[in-house]
């Protein structure tokens, strides 16, 4: 069996990658994917902890977190779609009407 700490380490790496990706990429879809990575990093941690403590709650958390992520993606895509319909692009930096 895989050591929970390894899982957690993978989670940490995923989180790091996701966080870096969020501000490195300008494409909104890619950023959304990076956010998913971060959420999944959390999921890995939950799984690891559930393994470690033998606590069933961890699995439940994971399941719910996946659901949350799905909802978030759905809403995110909807928002991006509407943005696309007015701006014609989904580049994060293109929308700069509101500033200062």
């Amino acid at each position, binding site marked *: 069996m895989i050591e929970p700490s390894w899982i957690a380490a993978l989670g940490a790496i995923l989180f790091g990658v996701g966080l870096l990706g969020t501000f490195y990429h300008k494409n909104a879809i890619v950023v959304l994917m990076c956010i998913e990575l971060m959420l999944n*990093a959390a999921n890995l941690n939950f799984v690891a*902890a559930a393994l470690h403590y033998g606590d069933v709650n961890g699995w439940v958390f994971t399941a719910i977190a996946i659901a949350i992520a799905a909802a*978030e993606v759905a809403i995110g895509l909807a928002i991006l779609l509407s*943005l696309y319909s007015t701006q014609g692009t989904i580049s*994060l930096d293109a929308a700069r009407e509101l500033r200062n």
Partner: protein
Amino acid sequence: MTSELDGIDVQLLLPELIMTIGLVAIIIFPNLGDARFRIPLTSFRLPVLIGGTRFAATRDPRIPNRIALATLLTSLIASLLALFDPPESGLIGRSLEVDQFSILLSNVFLAVLILCTISAAQRLPADNRAPIPSGEDDAESESAKTTALYDNRRQADFHILLLTLGLGMSLMAKSTHLFMLFVCLELASLSSYVLVGFHKETGAGGEAGMKYFIVGSVASAAGIYGMSLLYLWNGSLAVEDLSESWRSMETLDPLAASGVGLMLVAFGFKVGAAPFHLAIPDAYSGASSMVAGVLATASKAMGFAALIRLLVIIAMPMTGAAFWFVTLAGISVITMTWGNLAALSSENPKRVLAYSSVAHAGYMLAAISAIGSGLAGQTGTELILTAVLFHLCVLVLFKMGPFMVLSSIEREGGSHDFSGLHGLSSRDPLLAASMFVFMLSLAGVPPFSGFLSKLLMINGIVTVSAGTGGASTVLSWATSVEPVFWLAVAVVLNSALSMFYYLRIGMVMFFEPNEGESGSPVNPMVRGIVVTLAILSLAFGIGPSSELLIGFAEDAAVALMY
């Protein structure tokens, strides 16, 4: 998570249940029609009522608004009843607890949502006789007609989102389990993202929604990751367990500390703390004003409730300063200064209010960080929590108020720079006077409630620190006193700084000549509400009514702590 909903629990969760019912009602009711389902093989058509040609009553686009209002009012009444007559035992399983704290916050949320709904009736009008554009119209009137129709169509959407937001927030306040708390928070957040970007036909709406969503998602992803770290550390996410483990922890576990730190990011975004606040002004100015008002009051209250639970209840060591004390103090000073400075030269009233909201978050963070200094003790903590909760309550009055005023001129396209406010005093003196009262209250001028709440917070900070510092000269005292004391100084200096833009709004209303529009921009209902809010901001500033509210806040603080 094993308990069942028995009678007592139903009563405890009455507001949320009402909201849920209302939610379903909004979804279903407008869709009622004469649709019939022919039972296969027979000619018997069973009326299924969903779909088909809608009835006259259900066709009315104003229905969702009314249902939402009725739902929220009923919930509020239920919630208020609970406030005055607190239930004996509030525990529902391990994840929810109804106590004075959550009831007070529920009231705040519901009040905000009611105000928002009332405002929405004007900002997002539903016209059951909206004309259909014909080819003869010119471009302008055609687009107006289109918008009107459009607004009719999305009445239900808007109010559904409002109710989900309310449900999420209300449940969040009751959560005693971190994961539950987070789920509710997400429910509220996701609704609020959509609400911000609700006016998707305008570029600004979409843009604001996108920014708020992206930054918010990153923050909550960090938060959920932080939470997972806490879970890794402790194996349980119940607040009680976490708190106990934390207290028994001998040295600070990095896992725990970073878990709390990352959750701080998520909640920091909710309350608008620097440096996570950058999307806030954009979101406020892109969203319609009443939504911005909700973000600035209810959403912020939600963030603070979570923050308090996390920091004060969980991450507080038995003795000494909490590890987050310096961090939070630094954040608070940066936040308030940033907010006030940025508001100083802004030309957009919504952005000014957004920055002012950021600044207020800074004040409250300063108060909370005073608890983190570890000097507060029971009394000090109670005092500060009372102050923060009181501030969150009265914020509804004088923060939602101006947003309602802005919302009323927004329809005319006037909330994006100060010129929209020009001559408001001649158009509607009562409205302008109320707005001025709100500004003074925000600035913390006696005798308005903003002063009392700010005073309570500063008092809390001073109380924590005034006993320290022991030397005999001013200079050595100043070097030996706890740095917390300087937070109080920072708060008052910032209040002084903020005076400038608050007064500016007042002046713009009173002394710039009116251009264009004439006549009051609001309907009597909204005006009545706004004036009531202004009167209440005075009433809660001094006298017996403030006594009552402080009493509630105090009870809430006590309930939260023990």
